């Protein structure tokens, strides 16, 4: 008797046809992407991604038919992706969130589009000291001395952290190490580029029982458990933790505050550059800027987004106005890697 079960045979042509059918969406995706005006945004996740959607994508871009697709990752993999894709004619994203220091490095590597300022009308409202032609600043925050007012009185300059009441109770996230060094340099020399003097101060601080944490949020837990009573932190984080009920306050150091600036860049090989420009312009809208200030505690980078109520109070700069100092990004690019090596062997293992 002949076996009645039908034979299944995969022929080569069928296999090829199946493979082509499976690969078709991927092959056609870039064309389809441009047609529906989709902007691919590479950014951080969590609250930042949510606030981008709530303050920019949904209220400002969706009504214009622009759909923003977020690809979520940390900053280092995003940068790695941009470097790895540098030879490709079409990159995988149109806009990328970056800290200013990294934007300057990628600009030096010729990976970033020089922006056509006529396509970003809101650029004229950006603070002049934050403007460049390859990076659009989104948010910024001054670096302040953070302390717990229930445990200690306010430190007034970086050197105060070496005092006996802060001994063994000063904490930094190690990922902010270069900014901490800039703060130390500002105290020691009045500028942000005297890393050698900063190193001497950091060694003293380390000998005084400096506590190091793997990332920024662990600082909040350390304040909450009273493991530390002071440190150096962004004003935005101080505000965020105050809103979370943690006993912390900010003190602007007399020598000045280094600025942290985060924003967006357009890779040279972005597929939808027009969409990218629309996104950049939308994120500078006053409503979007105010939304970020209210929820994340970062200051608006534009002059036409005044703050009001509790946010204005929390983010108000003291009177007289403190000295706000932008990092020397070219210097940072050159010095960060050697400094990190020094930090690893002398501070982390010191």
């Amino acid at each position: 008797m002949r076996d009645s079960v039908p034979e299944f045979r995969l022929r080569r042509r069928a296999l090829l046809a199946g493979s082509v059918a499976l690969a078709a969406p991927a092959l056609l995706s870039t064309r389809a992407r441009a047609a529906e005006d989709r902007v691919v945004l590479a950014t951080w996740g969590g609250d930042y991604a949510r606030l981008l959607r709530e303050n920019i994508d949904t209220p400002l871009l969706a009504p214009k038919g622009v759909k923003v697709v977020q690809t979520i990752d940390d900053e280092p993999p995003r940068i790695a992706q941009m470097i790895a894709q540098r030879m490709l004619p079409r990159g995988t994203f149109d806009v990328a969130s970056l800290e200013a220091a990294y934007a300057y490095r990628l600009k030096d590597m010729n990976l970033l589009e020089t922006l056509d300022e006529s396509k970003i009308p809101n650029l004229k409202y950006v603070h002049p000291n934050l403007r460049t032609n390859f990076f659009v600043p989104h948010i910024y925050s001054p670096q302040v001395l953070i302390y717990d007012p229930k445990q200690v009185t306010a430190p007034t300059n970086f050197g105060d952290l070496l005092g006996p009441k802060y001994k063994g109770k000063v904490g930094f996230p190690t990922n902010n190490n270069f900014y901490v060094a800039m703060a130390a340099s500002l105290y020691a020399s009045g500028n942000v580029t005297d890393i050698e003097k900063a190193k001497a101060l950091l060694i003293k601080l380390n000998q005084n029982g400096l506590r190091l944490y793997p990332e920024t949020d662990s600082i909040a837990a350390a304040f909450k458990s009273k493991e530390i009573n002071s440190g150096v932190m962004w004003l935005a984080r101080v505000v965020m933790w105050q809103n979370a009920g943690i006993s912390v306050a900010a003190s602007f150091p007399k020598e000045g505050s280094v600025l942290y600036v985060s924003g967006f860049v357009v890779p040279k090989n972005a597929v939808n550059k027009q969409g990218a420009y629309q996104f950049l312009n939308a994120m500078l809208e006053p409503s979007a800027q105010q939304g970020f200030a209210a929820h994340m505690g970062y200051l608006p980078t534009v002059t036409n987004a005044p703050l009001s109520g509790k946010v204005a109070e929390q983010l108000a700069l003291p009177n007289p106005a403190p000295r706000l100092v932008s990092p020397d990004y070219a210097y940072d690019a050159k010095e960060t890697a050697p400094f990190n090596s020094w930090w690893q062997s002398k501070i982390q293992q010191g």
Partner: protein
Amino acid sequence: MNATAPAIAVPRRRSGGGITAGAMVLPATVIVLVMMAAPLILLARDSVNHFDPTDLMTAALTPQSYLRFFTDPYYLRVMRTTVLVAVSATGLCVLFGVPIAYRLARSRSRWKSAIVVALVLPLFMSGTVRTLGWMILFIKGGLLGSVLRLVWPDDSIDLMYTPFAVMVGLLSFVLPYLVLILQASFEKISPALEEAARGLGATPGRAFRRVVWPLLLPGLINAVILCLIMNMNAFATPLLLGGPRFAMMAPQIYTEFATNNNWPLAAALSLILMFVTLVLSVVANRLVPRRYRA
């Protein structure tokens, strides 16, 4: 009545017809090989590129990253810590895992399945989530910290960001694997052998040492090598529980890659870590007499 058995139709193999089982396995095998080999080749190539703080990685053929590892005491110290922690954690796993696996294998309790499930349950969640759980326990003001404070009120003992925390985190991650492997090995060893040894006058300890242990060795060495590999390459546990002052190789590689953008050094460290892990695995295997190896 026809007494002959009905003939079974044996399908003849036709050349050029359908794709055979071997041919169907081939694409997957090729994909796996390519996906494994290609990154390794890329790593090897990147590891001899030049690093410049401004231009980052530029194409070259230089041993600078390897030289840096062997001449900078910091990296040698990180490797030493990694090997020490991995070997210690593996030793502790064996110490705790062998009795658990033995009891489990010999158990006739109706709760045996439940115990096995409880053992495997931590593996259902990601390593990072599990590590965050340990952080909540260890952190000052956390559950364990608060209990410790009752005993030790002066608040001088830190659990978080200590080698102890890393060791506990690694054990919790690796121990279930070791127990499961060893339980399977113990199940294959007939209890009758132990009973025979004891019938011939051996004490329980001697029966275990002379009869069960040699038979367990092939399975044990596989489990030890697996634990060693996992401990050597641990990332989230040393990063989150050890803190910045406790450096192990995997977090260090990420730091070189992500913070310093030093891809050549990160690639060189990855290959060195892989090589050291391989050497340790071979050494572990060689420690077992040849006649007991699988």
